[in-house]
């Protein structure tokens, strides 16, 4: 059996999806950054290399700044007219049921100025953590007002799941830190950003490639076992 070229595999993963082509078409600089970030992250999965890790942090920081500048979610701190109406309606319910527990200054401040913003940040966070967003264009729960698009062919899903299982099992720290960092930064990015939550792109590539490698290895071991 032919030896597996892992670099080819990660390149195939990076370019074998709909998402990267959409990004390259819309913004070639972001696309190039994502390709570099994917390669750097993939190389860090099993063995941490200091120089590459520094490069990874730098590229990630630059990309994060760019994304936050171009797609910062202003709505987090602004209450729309529709939200205001709902807020007022619910104000009545809370006041009727909770009395002074709600109508005191502190609770009212928390309700009007804090809780809605926290809710929106949570919404952004969990929307980005939705696996269906990446493999099925959010199907079966498409989001209203957001242009959903397929990012990865769903046939890659099993490899992603295998990869994810391996990351959890082996506790790959770089992947975990990257996931946390990407989640936190993407929380502030608008869901309407036409390129989608691009900071997750390198992570998903690395996980899929990892899953693919594992499956190929298993297959290779089986074949060699048969030869023996």
């Amino acid at each position, binding site marked *: 059996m032919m030896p597996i070229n892992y670099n080819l595999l990660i390149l195939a993963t990076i370019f074998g999806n709909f998402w990267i082509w959409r990004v390259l078409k819309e913004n070639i600089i972001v696309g190039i950054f994502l390709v570099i970030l994917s390669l750097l992250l993939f190389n860090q999965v099993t063995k941490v290399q200091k120089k590459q890790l520094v490069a990874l942090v730098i590229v990630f920081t630059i990309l994060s700044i760019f994304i936050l500048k171009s797609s910062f979610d202003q709505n987090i701190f602004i209450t729309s007219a529709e939200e205001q109406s709902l807020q007022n309606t619910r104000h009545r319910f809370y006041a009727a049921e909770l009395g002074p527990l709600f109508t005191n200054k502190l609770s009212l401040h928390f309700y009007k100025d804090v809780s809605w913003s926290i809710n929106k940040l949570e919404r952004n966070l*969990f929307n980005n953590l*939705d696996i269906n967003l990446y493999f099925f264009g959010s199907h079966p729960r498409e989001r209203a007002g957001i242009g959903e698009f397929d990012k990865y062919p769903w046939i890659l899903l099993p490899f992603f799941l295998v990869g994810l299982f391996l990351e959890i*099992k082996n506790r790959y720290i770089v992947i975990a830190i990257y996931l946390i960092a990407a989640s936190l930064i993407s929380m502030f990015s608008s869901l309407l950003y036409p390129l989608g939550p691009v900071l997750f792109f390198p992570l998903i590539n690395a996980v899929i490639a990892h899953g693919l490698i594992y499956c190929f290895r298993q297959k290779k071991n089986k074949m060699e076992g048969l030869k023996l």
Partner: protein
Amino acid sequence: MSIRQVGILGAILLLSLLVRLYKLDTIPFGLNIDEASMGYNAYSLLQTGKDRYGEAFPVIFRSFGSFQAPLYTYFTVPAIFLFGANIFAVHLVSALSGFIVVCATFLIGYLGLKQNFRQTIVITIVVAFTPWSILFTRFATEASLGLALFVFSIPFFILSLRKIYFFIPASFFLGLATHAYYSERVISVIFFIGFIFLFLKKLLMNKKWLICGICVFVATLLPHMAIFGSGAFSRRLEQVNYFSEATFLEQGGNLRNFPFGKSMYIAREFSSQYLAYFSPRNLFFDPDPQGARSIPDLSVFYSWMVTPFFIGIYYLFKKRSLPINKILILVVLISPIPASLTRDPFYTIRTLDYLWSISFIIGIGIYNLLTKIHYFYFKVGLILTFLFFSITIFYVSYFVLFKYERAENFGYSYIKLFEFIEQNKNFSQKNFVIDTSRELGAGVRMAFLKKYDPLKLQQTLKPKVGNMYYGSVEFVEEYALDNIEVRPIFWKGDVYKEQILVGDSLAISEGQIKEHKLKLEFEIKDLTDRVSLKGYSTNPKEKQESDRMKNIF
């Protein structure tokens, strides 16, 4: 267990029971269509030994165009006998089912986790107080009873690995669960086969008991055979699946042009539906899209539980050789299957077994997280902070928002209408037509609240069903309850009789009010203070006169 441990366990169990019984008759205020149907059928069985269609002790209960698994209705009979035909009695079986789930969870943890009391208590607390667990055990649903029977069988399965004769009650309760809810029909069978497969070596050591257990399980499934070919057995799945050619043509997209396109469409649809049940967005943030089955602004778990969820998964796989963890992995993997075969996205009520197993995993995660914290006061502070946060969020979302914003899903306005008619002497003797265009369950709900004589109702409904009780026959279910008719309004005839027409603003428009000379008599407001129903008296004389004038000109 020490006395202290028994005390802690007792307090948690008591609290879990109180949370489920507190204001059970008023939150949710009312009965949805399924609850009303089960409630009236139970009342009818108690009075006459037959359901509202006149069928004696059915294997599965007909309800409008669909069918309901039978156990919940049968279990509601003693509740109605004890507490009367009211909302509390209908909700009670669900509340007690939730309590059984909590008790069984403790047993499962204690038996499966080598009597690790602390870990078991953490898991029990999570199962007892997560949003889904309280929500679905505070209104009547067959799913909560199905979950209770399914979970109740697991301690016996664990015990059967030590003493094989426990395999018999385990098989019995698991088989019984298939009569409690549709999802359990699939989950129980796969679980039973999966369990035998996982522990085959151990079970084969005593073949006689194994075969006895299989026989008991098969015997419990036999009643399904009675209706297997009738249409009633698979009616629900037919209504909600995505396997039909019409669905493929409508939603297949580009796959319509591919060879094997339909198979690919089904595979894609199943994968997306199945995966949706594992999505952190659905589990920890977005509520179920069905308003009637979700708490406003609160998903099935608290958002902070996402971290212990991932930690729990890690420990689950790390210690996957433990029998309890093997069982949990099996439940996690198989329990979203029935719901994934339907086209409704993230339909939580069909996956209570799955949500239970996820709660268990979150409990494992929380316990392991806490064991890593060695500073006592920090640990206590953390626990208190999250407890305070969770209780506040739940109270505000459920006991305030759910109460107000979901009241209409449980027919609040129709109940208020019924009370208004009963209490108001000016109206109680008049004839009413209550429109059901947007509230199919209004009739059976009113029959239940009115404690309408089941014999009379059977006389109306039985001829329509005929001998096709288990068949796919569909008809408009009209209710004539003494002076109250509950059915769609027929404008060609109803305006020529002296009576009161009741409906929402879509049922009776401004144009119709003018055209048919209707006069506003009363308004019913919903809990949010909006007018939801209006009652108009007809004026046949004036209407006829107006018709006559129209014909002249």
